[in-house]
Every structure is written in structure tokens, then in C-alpha cells.
């Protein structure tokens, strides 16, 4: 009995100590300025964490697109928990007045919320101390209207990053702009691309120390993918790393050591293409960028190779559909791993790369988690680029049966290969992927990765295409439709230890096209294309609470501490993006090949989800 009391006492003591350590400190230090490299934070009484964090977590504020630099989208805030989430209610709501897709997430810095709108890419500052009053200010950058007709998949923007007192983000017409976070005045603006040849910019920057990293978009228009690094203070371009071309332009030097033989050799960015096709080789970087402070390396994925007609570009087409690891200062590549050589399906791998430290086969390893567009959950050693595991996370996936971990190559299904002039039927997933760019979240409390998944398939015919600058270099006729099983999407919990799915919340009608947030309160947040915003139990997948917003959710939830010290959760409601654009009046339902083939997968969306953007803030 005494022993029992001692055990309980010890447990309580541990819980109190951990609880004291963890209890929300209203610390508004930007994540990247914190020196804490590892700060696994446990809820009181929780079991050992399944993994360790690599970069500092967001506390009261949210200063980077994913909250932290490692793209975990995990918040240590736990005031909203699995017990009280049912009492969530809307606290405030703002319209940005734009009926185009609202992707990404707001930032919160010093009691101010910052929202980047789709084109015309206005920046709106909301005073969190005055939620019923007028907005603080709106910055109007007036980008070139031509950009609207060059963006493949709606005129979206995936958000901003904060650094050195500035909000930094990309404009659709290939400019990076830095705006004074207090005054709303432009500090600098730098042109990074040529909108007239079809280059656009939709992704969120990453800010690390004194540098800003941005990627471009436009693989459907035959542009060259590139990552641009700018000086945070001045906006000066420091270096550019292309996704194809000679090694000097890809920034491949003597420190480049790809793990697999297939990725080794000189000037593969030219040699793996026919003639000069690499000059229109796509491989744009329109997704997320991650950073490991200890290794001082950045990680990102590249998009599809230029022209979807695979027969027009014999070869591996490097470095499209590739995960790059680069020195964060010099930009020189340390390793690269091409996820799918010679893409047949438009499987951009610009997905989030989530960096965690975890035991793998009994040894601590520095991992990179990459839930692929192609349906396989890639687990990699982020120091070496070795592929450790690649299991299917969406059952219908049939373009390949798996990955050969020895060679790093996918085991392709020849029956699903695509060719010019031939309609290959029943390819799963569709070009929109087993998941889209919308980011997953991970929790150390459950050891689960929460993936927003799609179950969409397609018929695909390669078409010979002419390169005409500034027009789509597309080369395919694609028709998508819901996959087998009676559902088209799910929020899926994936066990990191066993690399198997644990539970899923299925969406019968539409893919899950919004991002995910995991919190220390064991609550996972996400939204649906029909506009439902949900709080789900992180352990069981039980829907704890949901709220119907007026339009489809394609944005990512984030959480912060308000000026009153209370936890809030924010989400955009505003349909659009590639699949969501079918809700717009200027896309016709009687052409299933419209909008690059997504119309056939979006039945009823015009009625289910009218366009129009709002941001919602929820609290207890």
C-alpha cells in the first residue's frame, strides 16, 4: 500500500514538474530566434514521446508557414483538449472579399494576425485586441494582372513568413515583397521570375536566420523550376538553384553525395533529357521548405517535369520529382533523391518534408517524412538520403507496387504506364495525388502522422505538345473520377512506429483538400471541401466537434495564444485551388477534361461549396 502511495505520489510529482515546464508560457519569441533545438514538450501525464523535435515549436505566436522550421505543424498549446473541444465556438470572422481559393495559413505575431489573400495578394493585418473593430491596415502590392492567366491552378497563395520585423511573401507575378509588420509599408520588393513566359509564384517562403527561401511555379507552362535565396534585410538575390540544367546551375558541387547510384553522376540535369528539353523541364518548387538547424540543411521537393506527355521526354528527367537537401547558406546540394524517374502521371513531389528524430530499427535516426503525392509514405534518413521505408498510405495506389529500398527505384506497374495517343485507364492516384500539397501534421504524443488524403483515379492520354512561351506546355488529356471504395478522401492517422494506418475519417464525396494541425491537447484540426471545420481526437479519430463554414476549406489550421492568454484556432474558408476551382462559375461541368481533368471528380461542388473567402477564429 505504501509502495502504491509512493508510486502515485511520484507520478503526480512528475506530472506537476512536467506540467509546470510545459504550461503555456506566453513567450512570443519567433521560433527561428530560439536557441532551443530540442524541446519535446509533453502534456502532463503523457507517455514517452515517440520522437524528438528538431526545431523550436511555436508557442504563443505562429511565425513560419508550418509553425516551426521542421514542418511538424504541431503546437504545444493544450488549453483546447479532447475533453473541452466540443465547446469550441466562433469568436471572430473576417472576409477578404475575394472569391478565389484561400490556401495556406495566417501568421500571428505580437497580437496581430496577418493574412495574404489570393491574387491581388493583399496583406491584411488584424488587431487581435480589437476583433470587432476595423482591420489595422491592408497592404496592396498591385501585382501584374497577366499573372492570373498564367497560374495553372487558381490564383492562390500559400502564406507568408515573419522575420526581422517584416512579413515576407510572394506575389503571383514572381515578386517577393517584405512589408513592415507594424506599419504595413513595403520595405523591399524583388523580382525573381518572368511572368510572361508562364512563371508564377504561389508558395510560402521560409525564413532562416538572415535568409529567405522561395520557390517558383509553372511546370504546366514549361518553365524551369528554381529555388531563390534572398537576403532578408535587403531583398538582394544571393543565389538561385535550378531544378535542371548543368550542375553549376543546379548548384551541385563536390559536396554532393546522393545515396543511390541512379542519382549519381555529372550534369544529370542535362544528360537525362533529350536535346534541349530540360530548358522547359518544369520541376518547380511550389510546396513547402523545411530546415534542420543542427545540420544547417534545407529540404524541399520539386514538381512534375515539363510536358505531361512522357514520350516527348525520354530519360529520367532529373531533377524533376526530386527531394533535395541543400546547405542552407551556400545552396549547394548535399544529396538528392528522385522519387519517380521519368514521370508518367504529373506526380509533383513538392509535399511537406517533416523532420523528426526518432528510433528506427532500434537506433536513433534523423528522419525525413514525405507522404508522397504518388501514394507511398517515404521515410528517409535526412543526413544521407537513404530511403528507409515506402509503404502505401492510400490503398487504391496502383501505378507501382512498392519501392526497392536497395536501388531507391519504384517498382512500376507497366500496365499503368502512359503514352502519347493511348488512353491508359484506371490509374490511381490521379495527377492530383494520393494527397495534394496540403500539409500533414505529426504528434509526439500519439506517434501518428495525420495525412489529408485523396482517393481519386484517372484516365490519361499523352498528347504531342508545342512549346509556345507563355502558354500551357501540357501535352495530356486527363479525366479524373472518384477511386474505388465509396469514398474520395480521408483524414488518415499513420503510425510512425509500425508504418501502418491506424484510423481514418473518410469523406464520401470529396478529397481532403485542406491541411492539418496537431496539438498537445490531443486534438487534430482539419477542414473539408464542403466547408466543415473539425476537431478530431488525435488518438481515436473521433469527431469531437465540427462547424460548417460557408465555403470549402483548402487552407491550413493554425493556433495561437490571444492577448488574453487563451488558445485560439484559425482557419480559412474559401474554395478554389486546382480541384476546388470547379466551384467557380467560369468552369463548365459538361467537360470532364476541363481544369486539367479534375471536373469529373468534383460532382456537385458548385452546389456544395460556393466561392468566397473568410477567416474564422475559434475559441472556448
Amino acid at each position, binding site marked *: 500500500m505504501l509502495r502504491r502511495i509512493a508510486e502515485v505520489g511520484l507520478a503526480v510529482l512528475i506530472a506537476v514538474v512536467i506540467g509546470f515546464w510545459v504550461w503555456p508560457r506566453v513567450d512570443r519569441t519567433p521560433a527561428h530566434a530560439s536557441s532551443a533545438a530540442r524541446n519535446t514538450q509533453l502534456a502532463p501525464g503523457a507517455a514517452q514521446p515517440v520522437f524528438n523535435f528538431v526545431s523550436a515549436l511555436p508557442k504563443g505566436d505562429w511565425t513560419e508557414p508550418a509553425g516551426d522550421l521542421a514542418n511538424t505543424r504541431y503546437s504545444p498549446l493544450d488549453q483546447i483538449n479532447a475533453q473541452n473541444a466540443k465547446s469550441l465556438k466562433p469568436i471572430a470572422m473576417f472576409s477578404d472579399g475575394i472569391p478565389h481559393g484561400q490556401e495556406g495559413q495566417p501568421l500571428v505575431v505580437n497580437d496581430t494576425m496577418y493574412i495574404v489573400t489570393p491574387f491581388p495578394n493583399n496583406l491584411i493585418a488584424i488587431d487581435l485586441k480589437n476583433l470587432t473593430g476595423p482591420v489595422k491596415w491592408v497592404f496592396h502590392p498591385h501585382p501584374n494582372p497577366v499573372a*492570373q492567366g498564367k497560374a495553372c491552378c487558381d490564383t492562390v497563395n500559400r502564406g507568408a513568413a515573419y522575420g526581422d520585423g517584416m512579413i515576407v511573401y510572394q506575389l503571383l507575378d514572381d515578386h517577393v515583397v517584405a512589408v513592415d509588420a507594424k506599419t504595413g509599408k513595403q520595405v523591399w520588393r524583388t523580382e525573381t521570375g518572368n511572368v510572361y513566359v508562364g512563371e508564377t509564384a504561389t508558395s510560402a517562403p521560409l525564413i532562416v536566420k538572415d535568409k529567405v527561401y522561395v520557390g517558383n511555379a509553372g511546370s504546366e507552362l514549361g518553365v524551369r523550376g528554381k529555388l531563390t535565396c534572398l537576403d532578408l534585410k535587403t531583398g538582394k538575390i544571393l543565389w538561385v538553384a535550378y531544378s535542371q540544367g548543368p550542375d553549376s546551375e543546379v548548384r551541385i558541387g563536390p559536396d554532393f553525395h546522393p545515396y543511390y547510384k541512379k542519382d549519381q553522376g555529372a550534369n544529370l540535369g542535362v544528360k537525362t533529357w533529350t536535346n534541349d528539353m530540360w530548358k522547359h523541364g518544369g520541376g518547380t518548387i511550389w510546396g513547402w521548405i523545411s530546415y534542420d538547424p543542427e545540420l544547417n540543411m534545407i529540404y524541399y521537393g520539386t514538381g512534375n517535369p515539363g510536358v505531361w506527355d512522357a514520350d516527348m521526354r525520354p530519360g529520367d528527367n532529373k531533377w524533376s520529382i526530386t527531394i533535395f537537401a541543400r546547405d542552407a547558406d551556400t545552396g549547394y546540394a548535399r544529396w538528392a533523391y528522385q522519387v519517380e524517374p521519368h514521370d508518367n502521371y504529373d506526380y509533383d513531389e513538392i509535399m511537406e518534408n517533416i523532420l523528426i528524430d526518432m528510433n528506427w530499427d532500434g537506433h536513433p535516426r534523423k528522419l525525413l517524412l514525405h507522404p508522397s503525392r504518388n501514394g507511398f509514405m517515404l521515410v528517409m534518413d535526412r543526413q544521407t538520403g537513404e530511403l528507409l521505408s515506402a509503404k502505401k498510405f492510400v490503398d487504391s495506389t496502383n501505378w507501382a507496387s512498392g519501392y526497392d529500398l536497395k536501388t531507391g527505384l519504384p517498382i512500376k506497374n507497366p500496365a499503368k504506364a502512359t503514352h502519347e495517343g493511348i488512353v491508359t485507364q484506371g490509374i490511381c492516384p490521379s495527377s492530383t495525388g494520393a494527397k495534394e500539397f496540403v500539409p500533414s501534421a505529426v504528434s509526439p504524443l500519439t506517434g501518428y502522422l495525420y495525412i489529408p488524403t485523396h482517393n481519386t483515379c484517372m484516365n490519361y492520354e499523352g498528347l504531342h505538345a508545342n512549346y509556345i512561351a507563355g*502558354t500551357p*506546355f501540357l501535352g495530356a488529356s486527363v*479525366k479524373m473520377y472518384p477511386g474505388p471504395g465509396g469514398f474520395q478522401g480521408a483524414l488518415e492517422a499513420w503510425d510512425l512506429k509500425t508504418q501502418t494506418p491506424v484510423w481514418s475519417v473518410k469523406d464520401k464525396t470529396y478529397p481532403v483538400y485542406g491541411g492539418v494541425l496537431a496539438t498537445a491537447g490531443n486534438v487534430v484540426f482539419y477542414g473539408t471541401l464542403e466547408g466543415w471545420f473539425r476537431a478530431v481526437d488525435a488518438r481515436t479519430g473521433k469527431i469531437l466537434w465540427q462547424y460548417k463554414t460557408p465555403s470549402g476549406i483548402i487552407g491550413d489550421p493554425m493556433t495561437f495564444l490571444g492577448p488574453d492568454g487563451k488558445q485560439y484556432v484559425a482557419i480559412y474558408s474559401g474554395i478554389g485551388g486546382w480541384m476546388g476551382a470547379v466551384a467557380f462559375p467560369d*468552369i463548365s461541368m459538361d*467537360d470532364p477534361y*476541363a*481544369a486539367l481533368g479534375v471536373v469529373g471528380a468534383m460532382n456537385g461542388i458548385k452546389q456544395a461549396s460556393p466561392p468566397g473567402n473568410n477567416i474564422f477564429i475559434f475559441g472556448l
Partner: protein
Amino acid sequence: MQIRMVGLLLIVLAIACTGCESPGVTEGDAPPMPATAVPVGPIPGNGVAPPLGSTDPYINNPVALEEGRKLFVWYNCYGCHGGHGGGGMGPSLRDQSWMYGSTDAQIFYSIAQGRGKGMPAWGTKIPEDQIWKLVAYIKSMRTPNEPDPPR
């Protein structure tokens, strides 16, 4: 005065459409129009009703419609406006909504002159008779004459 204005516009159009002329329309054919007849409607560009005679010579010509469909793919129109014109990066051509006018000539000018939200000006790239074939194909959408309709 009005004649001079119309003449000037035709010269501007000719420059925008190098190497091609509107069929059956020359400067001398342009009718004098009183200023009050010039619409100031929502159509950007010249703001004048298209000259008489500029109807599409290929409307409902099955061979030309097939040709128009091929050109629609050849010039990458389908990449923006959808595989069969249902829209995407650019607006649907299958619906009843026409931002810049739905007459043959207005559609011709939208292709030839381009539009401000990203529609390229094709007048210097595509011969005039091919533009008219594209117009004929676009106007055939959702009609029984549409070649290779979506299915």
C-alpha cells in the same frame, strides 16, 4: 472625322494582326458611323462594334470545325480553357458567359488581340483563316455540330 477614326482603328488592328486582314473587309468598306452609334459598353480594346462583313466564314463547316478542334489542341488553347473548352486557367468557352462579347468578330478579336488577364495576343502568330476556324469550333461547342465532344 469618324471615317478617320475607323481607319485609324483598322490600321491599329492590322498592326495587331500582322500578315492578316479581316475577310472581305478593307478600309474602304468600313461604313461611316455616327458617334452616337459607337457603343461604350464593357468590351475593352477598340470599343467599336466589329466592322460589317466580319462573320465567320467557317461556321458549321464540318471540315473547318474538325480543323478548329485540332488547332485548339495545337496552339495549347486546351491547356488554359479546358480539354473541350470547359475552362480552367482561363474561362469556360462552353457556357453562356462572354466577358468580351460573343459575336464571331468579338471572339476573333479576343484571340487576335489578347486580353489583360493573361490571354496572349495571337494575331501575330496564327494566320487569320485559322483564327476563324478556332472561332467556328468554339461556337460549335454544346451544339450537335461540335467535333469530338467530351465524353
